[in-house]
């Protein structure tokens, strides 16, 4: 199952794509031979409890899940399986929240937090690890990010090799045509946020580029 684990709709301040436009674009990608099963909307600094994309998901035959991308003291973090107890515990709008507290709180409240674009210059987890910070609770990071600049995915890859982290892939799309440039290939079938958290806990997944998301693909998600 191929899921884009990182995307932003117009609900994020800097995105210009609606959810429907993403789903229409996925039809274009499917016609071109790509296998895409779903996307996760990871809006900046919030969780959209009130947004219901089920009708669109059904109309376009794409799984649409909701998550968040939070700003923290040690970089951005993707949160999957957001629950009310978690948003009651952590202020999602706080751009300086404690990263380690977030990682712990997510697990305590049934969610899963994944450091985003860890190789990103200036703000990726790699920067802080190089400064001597230790993150005992990290197991999975975003190894492939579609919005990365030259060298950043490579740094994320090295971090994973060095620390033994597992990696997911996501487009970090803010524009329609950027959706699904990177994906995560899961062994499990996923239809809900809860099943997504279970799939992450199963550790049966890998990041892939869009061109490797085809019916005949056997790629290992090679860095570009």
């Amino acid at each position, binding site marked *: 199952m191929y899921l884009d684990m990182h995307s932003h709709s117009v609900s994020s301040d800097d995105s210009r794509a609606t959810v429907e436009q993403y789903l229409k674009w996925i039809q274009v990608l499917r016609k071109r031979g790509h296998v895409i099963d779903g996307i996760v909307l990871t809006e900046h600094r919030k969780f959209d409890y009130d947004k219901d994309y089920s009708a669109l998901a059904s109309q376009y035959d794409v799984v649409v899940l909701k998550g968040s991308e939070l700003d923290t*003291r040690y970089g951005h973090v993707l949160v999957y399986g957001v629950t009310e107890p978690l948003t009651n515990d952590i202020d999602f709008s706080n751009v300086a929240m404690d990263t380690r507290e977030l990682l712990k709180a997510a697990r305590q409240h049934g969610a899963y937090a994944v450091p985003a674009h860890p190789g990103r210059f200036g703000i990726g987890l790699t920067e802080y690890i190089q400064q001597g910070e230790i993150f005992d609770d990290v197991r999975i990071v975003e190894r492939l990010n579609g919005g990365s600049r030259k060298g950043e995915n490579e740094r994320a890859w090295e971090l994973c090799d060095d620390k033994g982290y597992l990696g997911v892939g996501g487009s970090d799309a803010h524009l329609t045509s950027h959706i699904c440039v990177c994906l995560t290939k899961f062994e499990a079938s996923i239809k809900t946020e809860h099943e997504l958290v279970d799939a992450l806990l199963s550790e049966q997944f890998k990041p892939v580029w869009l061109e490797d998301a085809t019916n005949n693909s056997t790629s290992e998600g090679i860095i570009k």
Partner: protein
Amino acid sequence: MATELDYDRSLHGIEHEAGPFEVTESQIQAFSRGIAETNPIYTDAAAAKSQGFQNIVAPPTFCTIMVHRVELPDINLKFGGKPTGGGMHAGQRVQSRAPIMAGDKLTASSHLKDVYPKTGRTGTMVFIVWETTFRNQDGMVVADVQESFIRRG
């Protein structure tokens, strides 16, 4: 790190006005040269008139050079207790509602739309968003412009 935003919140809901200021043929031609625009309706009055316009037409983002005619107040922004500086342009939106032509006399009205923090490659930033509406001499809205600026603590 403290992250409270402190600024003059009374500015929300206040319109700041400027104008009227005349759009001249030479301004439109200079703007067109600046963006290497060669379509004759943006550079030649006769060509514009042959296409049914009253005069030379301004390219669709022309009014972005007029936004600064509105004198905007300092919002006295402090982030985490510290004054902020900088002022890099983060984003821009132009919605063209009607053609702007040489000879038009425009008025502009701006208001503060939003102020919010976020983090990125270059650290923590605060975004300040202003919206400006341009009207012509007939009171018709010709363009709406939204500008975002970044400031840092």
